[in-house]
């Protein structure tokens, strides 16, 4: 009898920590989220970007068990947020875009309050609170009234709160909203630290270039639909397909512009007073080849500048500023 040949077991792809499938949310006649689907692996930092009213907060609220999807489903660590809400709450830390304060508590009492709410054993609380305060750089505010803290400190205290029960997933809705530049930088550094600690984070923000600095994945939503989803590099590459290249010619004439327009993989040339804006299919022809081709046409090139593709450009390219 032949023994079955042992085969090397293939490592199955790790299940995503967050899985959103065909999510739809309606508020009366308003269709806030339309068929949103995405997955987030453990340890990823997912930046959720979109104009106001795009459906970011609604999606985050679904994951925070505060909102029931109209259709579709969302899973956190394999648990359906609509069905196993109680179990999901132990795995998430949710920080809303506002900071509801208990004016009458000190920073440590505030954290003790939530430690009790998270049912953390009393014996562990003091040390734990010391740790999260140290992590958020608020140790010296241990006995300070919450009401007297600056907005930035309150946000950091909010972050300390969501870390108390060591959740697998952090849901941060506009954590940098309304903060001054210093507080924003501090918040960004804190998020980077959490990223280093291996936390999975979903963060929504309007401060796009800040997200670009630490988000491993980006989801851009508009009118409730995902218009781009992937790593930053993927999105840039996708958007670069029609890169605009600004060319300034010393001998610019309409004939020369027409010749450039006729070049293969050039989709259009916009004649501006001091330059030509050339639209290039970059996946089929590189910017360097275009430079050679224009030079071969006899052009004397004074400036050749491919448009920079940053986060804000990507956002502006992908969205039209409309809401659901």
């Amino acid at each position, binding site marked *: 009898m032949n023994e079955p040949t042992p085969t090397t077991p293939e490592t199955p792809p790790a299940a995503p920590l967050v899985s959103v499938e065909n999510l739809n949310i309606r508020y*009366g006649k308003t269709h806030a989220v339309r068929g949103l689907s995405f997955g987030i692996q453990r340890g990823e930092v997912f930046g959720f970007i979109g104009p106001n009213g795009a459906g970011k907060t609604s999606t985050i609220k679904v994951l925070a068990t505060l909102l029931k999807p109209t259709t579709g489903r969302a899973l956190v660590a394999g648990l359906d947020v609509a069905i196993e809400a109680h179990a999901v709450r132990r795995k998430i830390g949710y920080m809303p875009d506002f900071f*509801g304060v208990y004016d009458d508590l000190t920073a440590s009492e505030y954290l003790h309050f939530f430690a*009790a*709410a*998270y049912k953390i054993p009393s014996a562990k609380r003091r040390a734990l609170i010391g740790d999260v305060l140290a992590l958020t750089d608020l140790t010296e505010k241990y006995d300070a009234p919450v009401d007297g803290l600056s907005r930035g400190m309150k946000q950091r205290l909010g972050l300390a709160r969501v870390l108390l029960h060591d959740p697998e997933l952090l849901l941060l809705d506009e954590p940098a909203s309304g903060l001054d530049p210093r507080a924003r930088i501090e918040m960004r550094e804190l998020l980077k630290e959490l990223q280093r600690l291996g936390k999975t984070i979903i963060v929504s923000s309007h401060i796009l270039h800040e997200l670009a600095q630490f988000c491993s994945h980006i989801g851009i939503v508009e009118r409730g639909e995902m218009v781009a989803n992937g790593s930053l590099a993927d999105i840039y590459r996708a958007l670069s397909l029609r890169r605009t290249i600004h060319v300034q010619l010393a001998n610019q004439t309409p004939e020369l512009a027409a010749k450039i327009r006729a070049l293969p993989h050039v989709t259009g040339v916009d004649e501006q007073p001091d330059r030509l804006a050339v639209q290039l299919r970059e996946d089929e022809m590189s910017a360097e080849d275009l430079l050679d081709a224009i030079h071969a046409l006899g052009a004397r090139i004074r400036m050749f500048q491919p448009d920079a593709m940053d986060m804000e450009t990507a956002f502006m390219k992908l969205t039209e500023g409309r809401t659901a």
Partner: protein
Amino acid sequence: MTALLRYFSFPLLAKELTEAAARRRTYVLRVVYGVLLFAVFAMISPRWLWRGSMDPFSVMGQGRWMFSSLLALQFIGIALFLPAMMCGRIAEEKERDSLVLLFLTDLRPWSIVLQKYLGGLVPMLSFLLLAMPLTAVAYAFGGVTTEALGTGLYALLLACLQVGALALMCSAWCRTTVAALVSTYLLAVAFYLGPICLFALFRIVVFQNLGPSPDDFIFSHVPVMLLEKSGLTPGEVLLRSTSVLLSIVFFLLLARVFLVRRAFAPASTFFVRQFRRLDGVMHLANRLTGHRMLLREGRTLPDDDPIAWREMTRKTLGKIHYLVRILVVIEVPIVGICAFASVDEYIGQSIMLSVTAAIVGTLAVLALSVQAANTIVSERVQQTLEVLLTTPLTAREIVVQKARVLRRFMFVLAIPLLTIFGSESCLEWDLRARYGERDGPVVYLVCVLLTVGIYLPLVSWLSLWIGLKMRTRFKAILTALAVVVAWCVLPIVCAAFVENLGLFGYGFRGKMVGVLLLLSPLAVPAANELSSLHQVEGFRNTPGIAWIIVAGSFTFYGALLFLIRRRALARADRYLRPEAHGKREPSETFEY
């Protein structure tokens, strides 16, 4: 010309009216007002209106009576609806931090006050117009002179202006709409009833109830008094309304002053400040007594009940030593009254205790209702509820912990009531035995104990339940108070109508009236105080009826308490996280 037009453009009034027109609440309230007015008018109209068997000539001249009833209904409507409609006019601007924006425009303070005033009056006047068809009906029946019609409408207008000005003044003084609403009702009671009560007291104390009869002058600030004398010329009516007009001007003047002076006043923490000041005194006194404390506050940090811990250690109405101070403030005068009443066994002393019990009981119920309705809503308003709901705490646990704190407050309110009832029991024990009352003293004692033991938790849970469903403090408190008051009053009003209209056969009508009366939570305690449980309409000759009524009534209310509590706890998650159960907020075009 353009400048003149700009002067009369009233942009704030236009904005107020546009907002009111866009609110569904405006139309809902108008329909409610209209339905109530027409329904009550139909109920109180004489029975011949629908029987039609009587001589049609006999109804001639009955219009005057109908018109008087209509005016009375309108006055009640103004007293109930207008404060709620007016008290948010300026306070809401403060809550939204938009008052400063108004100050930055060309609008002068007087202009703001008057435009806000008109903005609140116009919807109320539109409510009053609903009575036009009924007025026409009354006029058609005859008996309403043109002078009476004019005086009546003038009195209604004055009532609107006066109550509106009073509410606007409170709105300008208070930091929040809720505070403005509560102070408007309290001030209105003091303003309208205060002089009457003082006069009655003066008459009893000085003239042993035999002195001069109420003089018009004392109550001339009440617009209704204009209707007391008929056949007055327009000039005389105007003269008699001088004090009303002066009071309106006075209230508006104060509103103008408060608008500016209290525009940026912080939220009132008067009691908290007084308590903290007292803390300092107590701390000093403790030094003298070697820091011996009779009552120690609970834990400094929470165990497993963070919400109850915070409410009990940080809230004025949760801290044990603050509650004890409140209790002392209430209890000391009550003990004094009880001691005074027990000096003599005169039957009037028992009445005095009954009146004290009624006043303290009413205030206790109102305070408890406001506190209970506010307890969950305050978490919503502070935006802390959403965060709490993402913790492993269940909605049921949140409600249970909140209710535990309310229980403390309830005990504080129950002790003065029990003190009064205890003293009264001692008096009643002798009186009822002496006069051979059929409602024995034991019935009395059991009834008052059950009243305190069941009614206070019932009010607390009912208001808490209402507060669970509401999103704003104003709505929660107003609805809770409205439900409690309506529940107490409506069955009595219905019983009165059934009796007055002579509906049903005589025997059945009596029973019907009795049952309707028993549906009001006021009925049994009131009958118990008057020693007339055995005289309840329709059941007079039933043996042991007092015990049956007490047992039946409190079993009913006990069961109701159980059901409301169970419902509130079972559906807590649904109420606190409606969106997580598929219930969506109304779309943004409707402000609710």
